[in-house]
């Protein structure tokens, strides 16, 4: 039987579920510095392994932009024992599948497998972490793959152009300036030496947290980790990212051309990193604005005023101060300026009148349901535990989150809107067909 292992809903709804405790996540740290978080869950005969590396486009500089993401791809292209193609072939032969993703702050490798294959997965990971072998021929064919990945994103979604450009303007100095996928010309010019240095610097066991959930035993995992991972030497702590984005002192605007049916709009405000005390209130504010059809912006802009066909907000966890984004697509025959103005009017309402107790309770109820969804699968468990460990500094912070959300008051929400939704703090991007008018 699976069980929920966190007390999130107790605080939100007052249901007593005494069996839930932080102890359900068991941890150990190897001598080389790699930390393991393990959740035993035998609901299905499967398990997973999520490896979170503290490296992303935030660690790049101009000339090597996109290298973190490219490196993510190269981690599948051969090591000492399992040469080119053998990582995937061996994993799939043993019933496993994998993927990986790269963000501004982290690179995450995900393996999903029948738990009978656990030792094979350790062997595969140990091999590539200890002795990745970067074959120049593989570099070239993989370069084509990521160029295709970049191009197909741009080809199929106007959002990608809009967000990349707006983010680039919101951050003029901090490495959040460039897109995770990289600049096309940098992508064509990464050198083998860049990759080798990247591997040595960032793919050290001490720069990684591994999370395993599923039909496994903690003691077995520990033994396997000691056998396959512990012999890999640690490396010096990677260099710190020192750049702090200077405070924005005036509104920034940018216009982009693409052949689209109606204009796309994205507005970004600078907000603090995940560890800041405002995180939880901002997260609730984001939901107040766009979560569900009764949310402020959906109800006003799409339903009542019919100015937009889509609207959403994006606010998430980050290592350094990042962005709170509100984005929308204008309805037919609506000027994007009218949509933009209507968004500001809704934000002004919150600044002046605040929100209602019932609205706040609604979001707390939604957060609870969202939480159930996250712990319903072994993958949701691993991903969330790992994310808390890296972005909030400790997986145990996940246990404090319910209290943190519950402490947020209607007054706090108003304060957030006043503090962050200012004109001088925002960057506005518009993408439309005719940029000559």
């Amino acid at each position, binding site marked *: *039987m699976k069980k929920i292992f966190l007390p999130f809903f107790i605080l939100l709804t007052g249901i007593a579920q005494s069996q839930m405790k932080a102890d359900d996540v068991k941890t150990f740290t190897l001598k080389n510095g790699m930390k393991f978080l393990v959740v035993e869950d035998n609901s299905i005969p499967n398990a997973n392994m999520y490896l979170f590396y503290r490296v992303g486009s935030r660690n790049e500089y101009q000339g090597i932009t996109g290298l973190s993401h490219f490196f993510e791809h190269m981690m599948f292209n051969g090591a000492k024992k399992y040469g080119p193609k053998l990582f995937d072939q061996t994993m799939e032969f043993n019933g496993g599948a994998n993927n990986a993703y790269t963000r501004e702050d982290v690179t995450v490798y995900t393996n999903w497998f029948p738990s009978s294959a656990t030792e094979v997965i350790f062997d595969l990971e140990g091999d590539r972490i200890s002795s990745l072998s970067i074959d120049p021929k593989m570099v070239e064919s993989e370069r084509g793959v990521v160029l*295709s990945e970049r*191009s197909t994103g741009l080809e199929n979604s106007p959002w990608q152009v809009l967000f990349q450009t707006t983010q680039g303007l919101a951050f003029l100095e901090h490495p959040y300036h460039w897109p995770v996928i990289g600049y096309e010309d940098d992508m064509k010019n990464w050198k083998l030496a860049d990759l080798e240095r990247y591997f040595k610097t960032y793919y050290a066991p001490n720069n990684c947290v591994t999370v395993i959930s599923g039909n496994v035993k903690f003691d077995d995992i520990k033994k396997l980790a000691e056998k396959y991972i512990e012999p890999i030497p640690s490396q010096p702590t990677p260099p710190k990212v020192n750049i702090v984005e200077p405070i924005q002192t005036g509104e920034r605007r940018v216009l982009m051309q693409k052949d689209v*049916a*109606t204009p796309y709009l994205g507005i970004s405000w600078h907000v603090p990193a995940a560890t800041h005390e405002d995180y939880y209130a901002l997260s609730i504010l984001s939901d107040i604005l766009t979560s569900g059809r*009764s949310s402020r912006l959906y109800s006003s802009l799409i339903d009542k005023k019919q100015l937009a066909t889509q609207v959403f907000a994006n606010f998430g966890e980050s290592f350094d101060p990042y962005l709170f984004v509100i984005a929308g697509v204008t309805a037919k025959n609506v000027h994007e300026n009218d949509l933009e103005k209507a968004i500001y009017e809704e934000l002004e309402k919150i600044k002046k009148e605040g929100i209602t107790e019932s609205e706040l309770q609604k979001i707390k109820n939604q957060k609870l349901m969202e939480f159930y969804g996250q712990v*319903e699968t072994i993958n949701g468990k691993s991903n969330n535990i790992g994310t808390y460990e890296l972005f909030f500094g400790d997986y145990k912070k996940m246990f404090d989150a319910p209290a943190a959300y519950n402490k947020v008051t209607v007054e706090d929400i108003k304060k957030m809107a006043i503090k962050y939704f200012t004109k001088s703090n925002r960057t506005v991007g518009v993408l439309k067909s005719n940029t000559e008018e």
Partner: protein
Amino acid sequence: MQKKYSVLFIILTACLTFQLHAQSYKLPLYEKFKLKNGLTVYLMEQHEVPVINISVILPAGAIYDGEKAGLASLTAAALKHGTNKYTKEKLDEELDFHGAFIGTTVSKESAGLSARMASKDKNKIINLVKEVLLEPTFDAMEFEKEKKRLLVGLEQQKESPRSVIGAYFDKFIYGDHVYGNIVQGKIATVTPLTVDDVKKFYVENYLPEGAAISIAGDFNKDEMKTLISRLFDLWKKGTKPQVNLASKPIVTPTKQQVLLINKDDAKETTFYIGAPGISRNNPDFVSIEVVNTLFGGRFTSMLNDELRVNTGLTYGANSRFNALKNGGTFVISTFTAGKTTEPAIDKALEVLNKLHTNGLDQKSLTSAKNYVKGQFPPRYETAGQLAGLMTQMFWYNFDESFINNFEKNVDGLNLEKANQIISKYFPKDKLQFVLVGKSADIKKIAEKYGKVTEVQIKEEPKKGF
């Protein structure tokens, strides 16, 4: 070194005799019964989280659109525009406040509703599900708003080759058969639709005798049985039987041909290469899945290995069988830079030829079988997934033996049978090509593969090509 070597040896040995001996996945117990009006009900208790999931399937898909493409889709959306007791606004507020969700969808053959709620809210939210399904008011103003959004959406789709290629392909391969109907509709057919069309479509097609509701989650089965019977007994049977439009024979293409959809600003070519496939009740369904896994269904598949890993022509290439009740398609799907269109298409064809010429070997078959078995249990991990599975069981007329015998069926596939599967189900000739890209650059290339019909992405898909 020594240590590493011995580890390698053990693993290789293990691989040679490898069989997945993890405890087999079995479908949890469920109860199935029928109400007097013919509605089929599935109940499955799952107490892992205090949540209840509902899945409903109805015989109200786009195959019943007739000339009014998009009608089934708009009808499904309009179910949420208010009920006898709740205005749309009130309905949205109630759902959001409880963190609950009711969503409607439509596919080619069926319409669907899914819902999710905290188990403590079950009486309130399941009653809302009933209202949405049985007592929608189809508010005229809300309908006009929905239609306007859809029309913008249809225009936006043309900005993304990936979003439109599937509809073009189906139209191309199914011709006049109702499986070629375009689910989202077309600008020309959606524009004249009225709320009366929706009301009529609802009365004719939202019928309990052809529908099923499945509920999985944290509840007591007997209590739920009482609740569901009380609420859904009110659903009236249809006055005339629904005609099964999909049962007409599907005319299969007689020659290899190309549909080229010109997009002037395209930098890539997005393409499908396909042929008629199988229906969901095909007795070889599981074996075909295993063989397709090898050909184009996973990362190391023949297609992805050649088009991505070896040549870097694309970010990804795959193949799949889309199986419906009375037929289906097989499709190879990928994309590449405009200038590499020809090598990418040629590679895809070369891989397909190789499948036929070389067949499979024992090691790769074992690998595919292990993979399919290993990735099976997570597909049915949550109560929401299980609720969806049960309505699929109803729709395609299969039962728990599909789940419980899955491993056995996979294990039973031997090399000889696998190679028969290839020649029987994987196309060799009369391939149908659909390309979305910049015609000025790729038309000459397209002509290499068959007679080319060219259309403009900004225009509407035609009835036949």
